Every structure is written in C-alpha cells, then in structure tokens.
C-alpha cells in the first residue's frame, strides 16, 4: 500500500500536463472555483491548476501561499514551487512568468517556527500515547492514536497517519468509533487519490453504520418511554427518529460519494454514475462539501459518467426525476442541467458544444481530469449511435450538421464506430449515406448452426485422437538427458540442425519439412 501511495504521488507531481485554454470560448472563473473549497483541498487544487493554466498561475500561487500560512504543513511550499516552475516552462514565451520568489514571499521564520511547533506537538502526543498504553485504558489509547493520526495528516505525512488509523481500529469499542475511523480514512484516501483502497473502507463502514443506527434507535426508545406524557413521548420519539435518520443519511452520503469517486478513479464509469445518483442532499455532505468534494463537482462527475454509460431512460429517471439530485446538485451548475436536458432532447450539437466550452473547468477537477478524454470519447460515440438509431438511412451531410462537424469528420467518426460495432450499418461513400444493416435472422441462424456443428465435429475428432493417444501413453516426455536435448533425440528421422535456444525440448524437427515450406511460395 505504501508503494502505491508513493507511485501515485510521483505520477501526480511529475506527470507532463498540457496547457488548458482560458478565453471567452472556454470560460473559467478562478474566484468562484476557489470559493468552493478550503484548507488543504484548496491548496491541492491550486497546485493541480497552476502548471496547466500559466495565465492564472500568479494569482493562484498567491492565494495558495496565503492559505498555506494558516496550515502547518511546510512541505506544501515546495510542492507549490515545483508546480509554479512547471507553469513557467509551460507559459508562452511572449508573456513569461515572474520568478517564484517574487510572487510568493517565503517566510523562513514562519517555516522554522512551524516546524518546531510541529515537532513539539508530535512529542507531546507520542508521550501521551505511551502513558495511555501503559495504563491500558482503551478509550484513551484510541483517542491518542486518533490525535496522532490527525496531526500527521495535517503535516502531510499520510503514511504515518494511515498507520495510526489502522492501529486505532483494535481499540474501538462502539460501532460509532469504527464509523468515525472509516470516514476519516476515506477522507485521507480520497485526498491521496488512492482509489483502489476506498472500497475496503466503505465495506468496513457499512455494517458499522447499521450497527450504530440500531444502537441509537434502541436507546431513543428507552428515553422516549421514560418521558412524562404520551404526547411528549411521541414528539420526542419523532424528533429523535428524524435526527437519527439525518445522521444516518449524512454518513450514507459520504460513503456513496467515496464509492463514486473510487469507481471513477478506476474507470468504471457506469458504477460511478449509479453511486453518485444515490447520494443524499447537499446538506448531508456537511464539511465534505468544502473539504472533499463540492456539490457542483458532484453534478459534473455524475452527469459526465451518466451520459457516457447510462441509457437515455435511466438518465431521465435517475437524474432528471431524482428531486434530491436536481435540487442539491444540478441546480448548482446551471449549464450541467442544460446539458442533461439537451441530451434527453436529442440536441447533440448543443451538448458537444457545451462540453467543449467547459472543458477547461472539467480538466481542472483532480479526480475527473485523467478520465476526461475517454469520457468525452464515449459521450461522442453514444451521441452518434443514439442519433442514428431511429433511421434506416441517414445522409452524412445532415448528420454532420446535427453535430456541427464537417462531412469527412462525420464519416471518420461513423467508420470508427462501425468498426467498433457501436453502429450496425454501412457507409455509402459515393452517395455519402449511412445505411442501417439489415440482417436476415433466419439465414444468420442457419449459418451459425451449421458452423457450430462443423466446429463441434472437428473438435470431437481431435479430442478423441487425443484421448486415444493418452490411453496408449503416447505422451511427449522430456528426454532422459534433459540438459542435452540435442543428444537426447529419439526421432526416427534425423537430419535436423541443432535447435539452439529452445532448451528442455523433446526431440527435434526434421529439417526437410521446414525446407519444403520455405520453398512453398515458389510453387
């Protein structure tokens, strides 16, 4: 696991990034973007953004530096400077970026002081843990581990943080503790983009969630029955049940979000889409909305994944008719809502244009960025396939107009999709017409059956021979002097040259056969 983390961080920091266009056709509002996040999540996103958008680098670096001052992880500075250097190399030559130290003044005293404070805090926490461990007080040990984990996380030492979370687990006494631990680890893993391990902790959290809900429910029953009047008891019970459900809803939402991000990270877009549409209202995201994932990001992730993989009817029922999703997420990004409406209305040109327009915005979402191009490809393919489905013949000219392409572009796309089997049809290159394939099911069935019969007969024959050979023990065995196969040959016909490079073989190939075939083409 540690290896994984290292590698991922490596690729994240050293990966070559292209410069994204930011202009009137590709609007991007940095202020709005950064207002969505706080703390480390913001700094991480800014460092991700800087190399790709040199035009915004100065502003972004300053914002990031300001936030770093309020945190305790001094290593973020160096990450920032690396990102900034990449931005400098990516920047266009006519508008070079000022050097890093001019943009961000690095406060050496602050760094030293923070490092010293961190060391002090660390020693203090470790001493505490030792004391509790010798006292054998479970709950205290758990809290000491938790504090240490949080501390290490805040200074950016993820591996030690994970280690402490893992140790903490054996000191958990209630399922609520387990749940807290799982949620904390999930936050950590999402921050690290360690997608493969997310499901493990989601699975661990789910039974704990059930158990803790049950425990809370039984305790509220007791408190309700001890209340004075039946009416008061009923209201109290109702209130506590509501609270209970919203608590549960909050955790459940976080788990769904984590699952969705993990599926997206592992490129199973359909699963990601169905996980994301199950998340609860934006309110239940709580602190995650600014720390882990903003509702508008959820809207983007969900919609892109859904367009790329789900059926039109599914998109309608699961997104447009899902009131929670529409009110919490789709509304926060109006263009995304429009995107879905256009898709359902078959206005593919508008869909593709809008996707292109916001491509910069999408490419700057850290979880989505590596998958953006394949998602766009999938969406485009589906759009073409959907467009063609109701027709028997389509003029490529009309198709090109509907998608805003040139005719040859449309033809390329169609030919590729036919090759991949997404469109059942053929192109009339001269008339520039796409014609749907008409298959004669009956003839097809006949052909398939005949072929199956023939295949099975020849397979039977070969297998029977093989069976007979085995019964007669005519099995190829290694020659007795297996280290000298050349001498160990037991073949009746020997005229072969030594077969170098194929060690451990029984027998040799008579040269005469190979010679003959080599000449075969001359016949």
């Amino acid at each position, binding site marked *: 696991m540690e290896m994984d983390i290292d590698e991922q961080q490596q690729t994240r920091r050293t990966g070559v990034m292209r410069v994204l266009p930011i202009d009137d056709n590709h609007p991007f509002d940095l202020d709005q973007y950064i207002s969505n996040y706080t703390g480390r999540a913001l700094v991480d996103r800014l460092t991700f953004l800087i190399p790709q958008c040199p035009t915004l680098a100065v502003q972004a670096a300053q914002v990031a530096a300001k936030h770093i001052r309020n945190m305790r992880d001094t290593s973020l500075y160096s990450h920032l400077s690396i990102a900034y250097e990449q931005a400098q190399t990516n920047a266009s030559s006519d508008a070079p970026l000022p050097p890093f130290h001019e943009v961000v003044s690095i406060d050496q005293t602050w760094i030293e002081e923070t490092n010293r404070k961190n060391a002090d805090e660390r020693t203090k926490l470790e001493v505490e843990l030792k004391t509790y461990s010798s006292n054998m007080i479970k709950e205290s040990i758990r809290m000491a581990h938790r504090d240490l984990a949080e501390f290490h996380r805040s200074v950016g030492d993820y591996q030690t943080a994970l280690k402490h979370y893992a140790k903490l687990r054996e000191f958990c006494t209630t399922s609520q503790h387990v749940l807290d631990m799982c949620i904390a680890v999930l936050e950590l893993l999402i921050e690290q983009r360690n997608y493969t391990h997310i499901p493990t902790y989601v699975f661990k959290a789910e039974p704990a969630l059930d158990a803790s809900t049950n425990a809370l429910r039984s305790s509220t029953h007791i408190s309700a029955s001890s209340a004075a009047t039946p009416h008061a008891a009923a209201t109290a019970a109702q209130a506590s049940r509501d609270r209970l459900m919203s608590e549960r809803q909050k955790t459940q939402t976080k788990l769904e979000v984590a699952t969705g991000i993990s599926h997206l990270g592992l490129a199973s877009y359909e699963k990601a889409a169905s996980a994301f549409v199950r998340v609860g209202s934006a309110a239940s995201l709580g602190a995650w909305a600014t720390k882990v994932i903003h509702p508008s990001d959820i809207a983007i992730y969900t919609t892109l994944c859904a367009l790329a993989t789900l059926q039109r009817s599914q998109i309608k029922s699961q997104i447009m008719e899902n009131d929670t999703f529409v009110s919490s997420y789709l509304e926060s990004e109006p263009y995304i809502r429009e995107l879905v409406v256009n898709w359902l209305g078959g206005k593919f040109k508008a869909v593709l244009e809008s996707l292109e327009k916001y491509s910069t915005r999408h490419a700057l979402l850290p979880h989505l960025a590596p998958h953006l191009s394949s998602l766009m490809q999938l969406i485009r393919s589906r759009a073409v396939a959907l467009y063609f489905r109701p027709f028997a013949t389509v003029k490529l000219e009309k198709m090109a107009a509907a998608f805003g392409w040139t005719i040859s572009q449309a033809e390329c796309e169609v030919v590729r999709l036919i090759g991949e089997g997404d469109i059942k049809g053929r192109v009339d290159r001269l008339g520039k017409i796409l014609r749907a394939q008409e298959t004669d099911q009956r003839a097809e069935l006949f*052909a398939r059956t005949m072929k199956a019969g023939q295949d099975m007969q020849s397979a039977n024959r070969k297998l029977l021979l*093989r069976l007979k050979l085995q019964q007669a023990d005519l099995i*190829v065995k290694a020659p007795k002097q297996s280290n000298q196969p050349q001498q160990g040959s037991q073949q009746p016909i020997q005229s072969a040259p030594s077969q170098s490079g194929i060690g451990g073989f029984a027998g040799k190939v008579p040269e005469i056969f190979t010679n003959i075939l*080599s000449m075969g*083409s001359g016949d």
Partner: protein
Amino acid sequence: MAPSTSTAAQPGPSAALAPAQEQPKTLDELVQYLTTTTGSAATVNGTLKTFGTKETRDTLLASTLGSGQDPLEVLSPETNTLGYLYILAARLDVSGALPPQIQHVESFCKRFTPEHARLAPDRISALAKGIVKASGENIKHALDPLCSIVLRYPPKPTYLTSVHPIFLHACVTARHFAAALPVLSTPIVDIDTTISDLHYNDNLLYHYAGGVVFAVLKRWREAEEFFEIVVTSPAQTPAAIQFEALKKLTLVQLILYGKAIQPPKYTNNQLIRMIKNSPYNTLGKAYPQTAASLTAIVQKDVEAFRSDQNLGLVQQVIDRASRWLIKKLTLTYITLGLTDIGKEVGVEAEEVRVIVLNMIEIGDINASISIDGNVTFADSTPQFTKADVDAALARAQEQSKLLRDVERALNSSKDYLQKALKHKDDAWGMDEDMYSTPPSGAWAEESMYA
C-alpha cells in the same frame, strides 16, 4: 514344393491341434517348414521370432537357399506372409546381403495378408525403413510400396501405424505431395499399440508432415487441422516439433481467417507462453495491415523467420493481407471507389481491380464493379438447401452414435470399472450422474447454439 503352399497357414480351430514341429535350424529348413506347416499364424510368428540365435538370425534370414535359389521365389506373399516379411526385412536391413528384387517388394506390399502381418509390427516398420533406405536417391520408387502398406496394413484407415510418418516423409522428400492425399484424406482417430509399435514421435511427425503437405498444396483448412493436432498432442514437456507446428499454425490461420486464433484450452501452457513472446505473435497482432507496414514488421525479425524456414509462408501471409483489408471494408462500406480501396489497402487502383475481381470470382465477397471504377458491396447471405441441412443432420447423428459408443466402451473398460468400484462408497452422487446421462447427452450441448 509349390503345391503344398496352398494348404499352409490357415488360422482356424484345427490349426491349434497341429503338433509342434521341430525348430528349423537353417534357412532351407525354415522355408521347408514355412511351406508345409499347418500351424496358426501366431505359431509361425513364434517360430520365426526364435529362429536361430539373436545375433545370427538376420544374417541367416538374409542368405540364399542351399541351392542358391532366392527364398522369396519359393514363398508366396499371401499364404506365407510372415515368412516373406521376415526374410524381406532382413534382406533390406543386413548390409552386404543380396538386395531383394524390386518386384518382390512390390508384390509383397500389394498382396500380403494384413491379419498375419499385424502379428509382427516391428518387422513391418523395419521393412518400411528398409524400403526407404534401399531406394536411396530415387525415393519416389519407395512411394508405391509404402502407400500399399499404409493402406492395407491397418484394420481400418483410421488407425495410425509407424509406417505412416515414414511414408509421408518419403512423399515430402520426393516432393510428390499429391501422392500422400489418399492417406491424408482419412483423419486418424484410432491408436492401437498392439498392431503397430508406435512412439509419440510417429503421431507428431505424421501430422506435422501432413500439415506441410496441405500447406504446400494451399489447402489451408486441412493444414490448420493437422498442425493443430500436433500442437495439442498430449505432452509433459512440449517437443520442438510442436513449437514449430504452432508457428506454422499461426501463419496458416492468418492466411485462412485473417487473424490468429487462441489455441484450444488443452494446449500445453509452455507452448502458449513461448508463442506469445515470438515474432509470430507480433505479426498476428498487427495483421492485417498494408503490405508495406507488414513487411516492415517482418523485417525486424526476419532472421527468426528465416532460421525457422518460414519466410515462404510469411510472404504468403503478407500477400494475403490486402484481401483481408478489402473484406473488412465490406463490413463498413456499401460503395467505394477503386482508388479509395487502394488508399485503404495500400496498393495501386489497377491491382485492386484484379484482387477484387478474383475475390468476387472465388466467392470471398459479393460485389460488383461499375464502369467508372466504383465497387458496390452487396450483403452475402449464405444459403442452405434442404440437402445441406439433411447432410449436416446425418453427420451429427453419426457423431452422436460414435460418441455414445466411445462412452459405452469407456464405461465398460476395466480401468474405469475398477475406479468406479473403488470410489463407489464415497462418490455415489457422481456415479449416479454418469449413469443417468441420457443417450443423447453427447449432443445435448448443441442446444446452446440453437
């Protein structure tokens, strides 16, 4: 002497009662014994086997009669099959012995009694090798006698004998490929080590040589089957010839299907691993592309192909690529100009016309070319007549019967019964399953294709 031969060596109930005769000591006595004996073929074979001492036997057999007469003149191939065979084999084998006259060899091969000859399989192998040796440079003289042995010796043409690979090797050496076809046309499905002293190499060599013959004759489907048999033959450690066959199989499949097909599951894993790392796999993955880019790929590993002696086949694979590319185009396009095809395939428009015309002629594609050079691809739906379906059904029934017979034979075999009895107590469920299988079970899997 001649009249007595007609009564000799008729196997039957009376033969067992015949008194054991004195062991013949010299060739004269032996010939005398052979022509007069009434013993069964098995007795005669026993006598011949123990004739003389081990060291002197062949020399004695290879000598002439006291009168200087050739013993083969005296014996008859039909009635004295075994004696004839022993003497013939010895004469061909012992150096310095008088070589038998060619008509003796030929008449024996055409007239011997197969039931008797099967008692001495090692002599038959020796005879076949002797014939090849004696023919020397003129190996095509050996083909006729060998062919007669191969066709007459086994009880059914579906049996493999040790003479099969020798015959095919001779055919290939003499480049008389068509001569092998009567033998190759019947697939081998039976192995009986009691009628022929088989070695695993015999099976491998026979099918490998068969594959080579079919490949030279450009009968790719059969070649594929033969090479596949070699590749999938049971092996603890794969033989070099199996790997060579797999290489050729890959090339043949590229010619036949336009792509390499994963070998069956029961293929030795080591072979599959080795082909994955070979240039053949690279070629198969890249196929089909334009001839120019394929040639570039082949050129990278040209030494490997050359040392495998497969360059000729590889060239045919490359020549074939444009056909596969055109075939692919028919799936995507309805109409295309010849020049467009030429661009996709990487050849000149005029050459494309020739290829397309040829493909239409042999029925590879269903298309027409207009005067201005546009090709229209029509759907090619295969049509089946009632006769085709009936024939297929008949074959299916035949197969089903064959499999049922095999299953019965297996169920009543000693090994199986022993095993079944041993596991009777702890594996009742399994046994019940086996017995309750309906007779049509062999073809029950068919339903999934329907």
